[in-house]
C-alpha cells in the first residue's frame, strides 16, 4: 500500500525531505523502522517517535495506510 511519511525538524534534515510516499506491505511499525533505516541510514543515530494518523504508536502497532509522521524530540514552549 501507499503510505505518506512525514519528517519533521532535524529528521527532515537527515532524510533530505519533509515527506515522501512509500510503497509498503502490511507490517507492524517495527517493520517500517527497518525499512526506513535502510533507506535513510542517518535515522539510526537519531532519537524519534512515530505517529500514525496523528497518534503516537508502538513497535507492535500495524500500519493501516494512514499518514505516518516521524517525530524528533519535542521542543515546544
Amino acid at each position: 500500500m501507499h503510505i505518506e511519511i512525514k519528517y519533521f525538524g532535524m529528521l527532515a534534515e537527515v532524510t533530505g525531505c519533509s515527506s515522501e510516499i512509500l510503497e509498503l506491505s502490511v507490517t507492524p511499525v517495527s517493520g517500517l523502522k527497518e525499512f526506513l533505516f535502510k533507506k535513510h541510514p542517518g535515522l539510526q543515530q537519531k532519537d524519534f517517535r512515530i505517529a500514525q494518523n496523528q497518534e503516537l504508536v508502538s513497535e507492535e502497532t500495524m500500519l493501516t495506510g494512514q499518514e505516518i509522521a516521524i517525530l524528533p524530540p519535542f521542543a515546544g514552549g
Partner: protein
Amino acid sequence: MKTTYKNVFKQGPISSEFIGASIAKHQSKTGIGAHNIFLGQVRADEIDGKAVAAIEYTAYEEMANKKFHDIRETTFEKFNLTCMHIYHSLGTVKTGEICLFVFVSSPRRKDVFKALEYVVEAIKKEAPVFGKEIFEDQSHQWKVNS
C-alpha cells in the same frame, strides 16, 4: 472524515500588545477572580561560546492542534476554570520575544495555579513542536525540552 481543531499557532512572536488585549477582553467576565498567565520567552543561551539569536519553530500542525485540544479538554475536566487560551509561535522568534502564551482564568486562585502548570507541562511533553536554535553566526542546533 477529518475533524478540524482550533488553530493554536501564530506566525512569529506573540506581542505584549496581544497579551494586554487578551487580558482586557476578560474584564466583562465578572465571575472571574483570578488569572494566571505563563509566557515562554526565547533565551539567549550560550552554547560552546556561541549565543542563541533566535528559535525557528515548526510543528506537525494537525497533530499539535489535536493535542492542544485534548490538553484543553482534560484541563477543564480536572480543574474549575472559566476559560483558557493557548497560543504558540511558528517561524522565527528572536531572543527576548515570546513564543508561548498560556492563559487560564477561574473564580478562585487555587485552581489557576494547578491548572496552568498542568497545561504548560503537558504542552512541553505532548505537543509535536520543534525548535531550531539559530546562533549569531547562522549555524544552528535542534532544541530538546528538558
